Each structure stands twice: as C-alpha cells, then as structure tokens.
C-alpha cells in the first residue's frame, strides 16, 4: 500500500470570497474580509468587527436547493465541499468515498433562535430549528447532498477540529479503507460563540493584528474549507495529476488549561515536531508556515515560542491568514489547508496584514508583503481550546 496521499481538489468559502478563485484574488490583493456585522443579529453590532461570508442564507439555500431552515454551518460546508469535489475532477461515485467534517457548534445558529421561544414555553419554538443542532447533523446534510455514504463522521476539538479531520482522512486512505476523502470543516458565526469569546475578553474591537507586539485579540469569522484527498493509485489515473501531497501530521495536547495554551508552547511544539517527523523532513525543509496566529496574547506567544525553539535560527517565512478571514474556529484548519495548497501551487507567501511591531520575545516576524517564491513544504498549524494542537505538512511532488 502506497503511503502517499494526494490533494486532488480544494474548495473554500470565507469572508474573502465565495470560492477558491475569489479567496485567492483577495489574498493576492491584501484585501481582508472583516467589517461591521451585517448578517449576525447581535447586540455587539457596531462594536465588534466580524468576518462574515457575504452571501445570505436565502441565497445559499437557493444556490443549493436546500430548505430555508438549514443551518448556515451546513450551507457553508456544502458550498465548499461541492467546489472541492468539482475542482478535483474525481467521479466520487466510482470510488469508496468518505466525508470527514468538523465544526465547533453544529446548528447553534438555529438553536439560539429556537431558544427564545422555547425558554418561555417548553412546547413552543419551531422544531425545524433544532433538528440539526448536533455537530453530526450538520455534516450529514452535506454528505447526503453530495451522495457520500461509505464513511461519514465529524470531529470537534474546537479550533483544531478540521486539521484533525484532514489527517484522519489521509490515514484511512493510507490504510486502504477508502480511496477518496473529502475532509475539512465548517463553522458559521453565532451569537453563542461571539458572546463566549467576548466573555473571555479575547476579541479585538479593531481589526486583529496577529503576531504583533501590540495585538489585542481575535476577530471571529465564518466559512468552510475542504480538500479532496486521494490515494496514489487514484491520483495517477486523473487527467490532471495532483501536484501536492499531505506528507505530515501530528496531534498533541498542552494538558495545561481548558482554554489557554501553555506559554512555552508545549503542545504546539509537540504537534509541529510530530508533523515534521511524520513527513520525514527537517525544520529547514519548511518554506512557509501558515500560522494558527489568532491575534490573542496567549496563542501568539505560545505558538511563536514553539517556533523559536523548533526552528532555532532558521526561521521559515510565516504569516497568519486569519488577518484576512478572522478566526473561523472549526473551519480554520480546513480553510488554511486550502490556502497552504494554493501557496504551493501558486508559489505565493500570503501577507500577515496590519503587522506593525515585532513581538519582543521573538527573534522573527511574519511576512508583511505578498511574496512570489517556489514553495516545496508548508506547515499549517491549528490549535484550540482543550489544549488540542494539530499541525499538517503539505509538500510539492518531488
């Protein structure tokens, strides 16, 4: 059984575009997606910027032919997963295909509306609005829409969720259980998460400044991102041969605190080290790190310290594309996997927007201008609540 797993297609929807081409254009134009709240109806409107997908639920439903009560989390997921499959050129019906998705709060966008009436009267509230509350229910809407049934599951490890779904997909292909896996994640903005992060006092009331000495917190975003993983055999049979592989991955835990990273980046370091080992690469082989880089005090110092220790003196180019998309939580690993693949395919290092001042603890700073460069290996980091840390390595075919 070949160990190689290829990326045959990508699909993405985020605040900076409704498809891969639009996302890439925004990344090239240094055009971020955050702004005043337009769609989410929250009291924090006008006070906390968010990175919203520009399409309404109505237009997403119409585009997909799904009913109006469908959770936005599922709508975003379906758009991106569908694009990934189309982009791959794989006729999924012909193969053993899996759909491994991830999200952090399932259909909460609908549940929080349901709760308003339900709290007054246990017999009130439209049940259509809670029927897709479970994280897995959201995944099933997409899987059923795409006609995938050989293997369907959902992972939820907060902000690292979709990185985990991607390596699980790769592992199951390597082990011969599946030929194709559509893997990634999705999350829609909800009042629940916005208020949750607000109580933790880690939201920036301005546009976020990841990896900056004067960073103030994160902006929440929404979206979905998926990659189509295929076996080497299938990759060889495609008209357009995939040029990027998923070569490394690892999952580790801080075991430090429920929501905070250990300041020395224990889990981050273990995840990055493990992913390099799996990929059989040295730190110096990494050309670009797509940082987790949320813009919070805690994440950026933990991640930065771990990079300082692992790459000691030989720092790759790095940037946080959350400066474009905001932090899309359960979707971020999927969206950033797509950007990592694009970085290799297009030979681009995306800019870390709004960066001003280097962090005093770190001997390096992120890339502040779009760069054109041949990229062989990209590391993509995803770290989350619960101490969950995952890193992926994408590599150009040798």
């Amino acid at each position, binding site marked *: 059984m070949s160990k190689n797993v290829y990326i045959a297609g990508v699909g993405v929807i985020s605040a900076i575009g409704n498809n891969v081409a639009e996302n890439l254009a925004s990344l090239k134009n240094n055009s971020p997606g955050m702004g005043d709240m337009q769609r989410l109806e*929250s*009291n*924090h409107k006008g006070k906390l910027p968010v990175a919203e997908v520009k399409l309404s639920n109505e237009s997403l439903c119409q585009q997909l032919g799904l009913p109006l009560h469908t959770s936005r989390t599922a709508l975003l997921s379906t758009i991106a997963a569908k694009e990934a499959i189309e982009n791959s050129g794989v006729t999924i019906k012909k193969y053993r295909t899996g759909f491994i998705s991830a999200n*952090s709060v399932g259909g909460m966008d609908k*549940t*929080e509306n349901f*709760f*308003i009436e*339900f*709290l007054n009267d*246990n*017999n009130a509230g439209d*049940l259509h609005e*809670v029927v897709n509350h*479970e*994280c*897995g*229910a959201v*995944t*099933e809407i997409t*899987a*059923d829409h795409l006609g995938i*049934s*050989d*293997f*369907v*599951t*959902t*992972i*939820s*490890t907060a902000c690292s969720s979709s990185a985990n779904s991607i390596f*699980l997909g790769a*592992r*199951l292909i*390597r*082990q011969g*259980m599946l030929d194709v896996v559509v893997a990634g994640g999705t999350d829609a903005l909800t*009042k*629940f998460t916005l*208020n*949750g992060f607000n*109580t*933790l006092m880690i939201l920036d009331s301005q546009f976020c400044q990841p990896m900056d000495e004067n960073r103030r917190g994160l902006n929440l975003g929404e979206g979905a991102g998926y990659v189509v993983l295929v076996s080497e055999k299938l990759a060889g049979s495609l008209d357009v041969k995939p040029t990027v592989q998923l070569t490394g991955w690892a*999952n*580790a*835990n*801080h*075991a*430090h*605190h*429920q*929501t905070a990273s250990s300041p020395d980046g*224990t*889990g981050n370091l*273990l995840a990055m080290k493990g992913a390099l080992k799996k990929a059989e690469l040295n730190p110096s082989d990494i050309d670009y790190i797509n940082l987790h880089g949320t813009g919070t005090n805690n994440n950026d110092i933990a991640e930065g310290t771990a990079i300082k220790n692992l790459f000691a003196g030989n720092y790759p180019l790095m940037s946080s594309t959350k400066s474009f998309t905001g932090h899309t939580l359960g979707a971020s690993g999927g969206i950033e996997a797509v950007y990592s693949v694009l970085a290799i395919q297009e030979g681009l290092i995306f800019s870390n927007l709004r960066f001003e001042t280097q962090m005093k603890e770190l001997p390096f700073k992120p890339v502040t201008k779009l760069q054109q460069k041949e990229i062989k290996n990209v590391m993509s980091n995803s770290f*989350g*609540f*619960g*101490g*969950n840390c995952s890193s992926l390595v994408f590599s150009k075919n040798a």
Partner: protein
Amino acid sequence: MYILSTSAVSPQASFEQMLKQPAIYEGEMLKCIEPDYTEYIDPKLIRRMSRIIKMGMAAAVETLQQSGIEQPDAIITGTAYGCLADTDAFLTRLVEFNEELLSPTAFIQSTHNTVGAQIALQLGCHKYNNTYVHRGSSFEAALLDAASLMQEGEANTVLVGAVDEIIEKSHAIIRRFGQYKENGNSSNLFNSGTPGTMAGEGAAFFLLSNQKNENAIAELIGAQTYYKTDRPASDIINHFLLENNVLVDELDLIIMGNNGDVKTDAHYNEPAQTMFKGARLAGYKNYCGEYPTSSAFALWMAVKMVEHGKRLNTETSPKKILIYNNYKLQYPSLYLLSAC
C-alpha cells in the same frame, strides 16, 4: 486489539449489582447513578465541573487504574450531544440577559472536547487527543480512530470511550419528536408493545492495547459501522461474521440494541427469528436506556460478562459475544468480542 480494562458510569450502580438486581426505572428516562467523584477527580475541580465531565472523568480514571497503565498513547472520546448542561447554561443566560452579564465558565466547558481535554489535563497527558461527535456513530468513530492509530504505529495503548448526558431541556425537546414512552418501565421495556423508548445516558471507557498481556480481558476481533444503509439486519450481520470468519454457532451470546419501540424493534426481530433462532440473545437498553452512544454501554457490559465468566470459570459463561446496535436505524454498528 485487546481490552485491558473498562469502566462505566451508568444507570446501574455496578455490573455486580446489575447481575444481582438491576436498577429499574419508571417514566421516560434512566439516569446515571453517580459514584463518589472524590475518588477520581481533584476535589478542588469537582465543584466547577458539570455532570457529564465528572461522569466521563470517573469512567476514564477508573479504567486507567484497572489497566495499570498510567498514561495512554492516545485519548479518544465520542459524544453525540457534547456538554449539554454547560451549553444550556450559557445559551439560556445569553437569551435571558440579552447578551449581557455573561460569565465564561459555562462557555469554556461547553466545547465538545471538554471531557477528553479534562482527562488529558488531569493525567498531564500531552499525547494524541481527539473527539468524535457524529450522532449514533460517535463512539464507533472514536474506536475506528483508535484502531487506525495503532495500525499506523502511532499508539500502542489508547483510552477510548463515549459519554452523553440527559438534561431537562434536551429531554423536553427530544420528547416533542415523540421518541419516548409516556409511562415506561425499564423492567418491561422489551415487551411493552407501545411506540417510543426510554431515554438513557452514560459514560463508558476502555483501555485498548495492540498487545495481549496478562491483564487482557478480551480481544476485540472486529468492529464495524455503516452510515444510513437500509440493508436488513441479517444481511449486515452475516457480512460482518463472514469478514471475521465466525459462524453463528460459535457465538455464545448476541447482544442486541432493540429499545422497546414497536416501530423499530422489527428490525432486530428479523435476525432474532431467522439466523439467530435458538441462539442466546440479550438486550441491554433496559439497563441504560436509549441514547446515541449507548453501544459503549453494550461493549462495557459484554467485557464485564467475559471478565465475570473468567472469574467463575464455568462452561456456560460467554466467551464469544456479538453486539449489534442500529441507532435510529441509521448507524448499524457491530462488535465481535472474544475472551482472552
């Protein structure tokens, strides 16, 4: 894969108690009998933890203690609904106080990976940690990940389990879908002849190892799950037995997931009356109720039966057990277990 130990927090006080005299429940639900948590969790932390976290922690810690393994190479959890009480607490306050005066505690503990994360935190375990949240196959996915990790050579021992809780509001919502009996009685669950079932909850953990050692209770020969197939049960089961080279005659016991709902029990009656005619059959949902990760309770029960049988060392104690559950007839799952 070998199962070195298992522990559950369930509507039954213990396996021994369940054998002697199972706890019987009337009404709509079976609720967990909770242990003294101070035996398993740092007392300073107990007060802040919601019920599901404590249930999961107690089952996980007890499983580890019994296995003699201090730190597993991976911790993998399955939960369909996640931390409902914390989610409810935060959401209710958010609605009632119109997005003001919120405290972060409930939000922090509401994420689906909280149980797995708290186990890692207490153990100081920096290794692989993952959480599956796929409805009636959440536990199955966690187990599949464990097997796959071992196959990949990334783990020798894995702590894997599932946990789900009933809270007042989730029950109030689910009952509106007509899923529960009005006047249920767990002792008569399978013969009620009425639609609906009884709600359940629980936590069950297992210490899996890819190596057989003197502590091993049972070998998990096979585990399989499918997504939304309408194949008849006997077809699914036959295929599974064939793949694992086991004949029906070799099975000492078959544990089935019928839940007393006349609308769905026919699905289980079909193999019971055909391929399993004359075989030793048992249900388990009269002990734990119906919930998306109840198959973890079934596996706990099977392992405990094997363990108990080994102690008694009698001819009739089951050595090879098949479990078949099909939650909402959408996630058929099978387990084949053999005494070590």
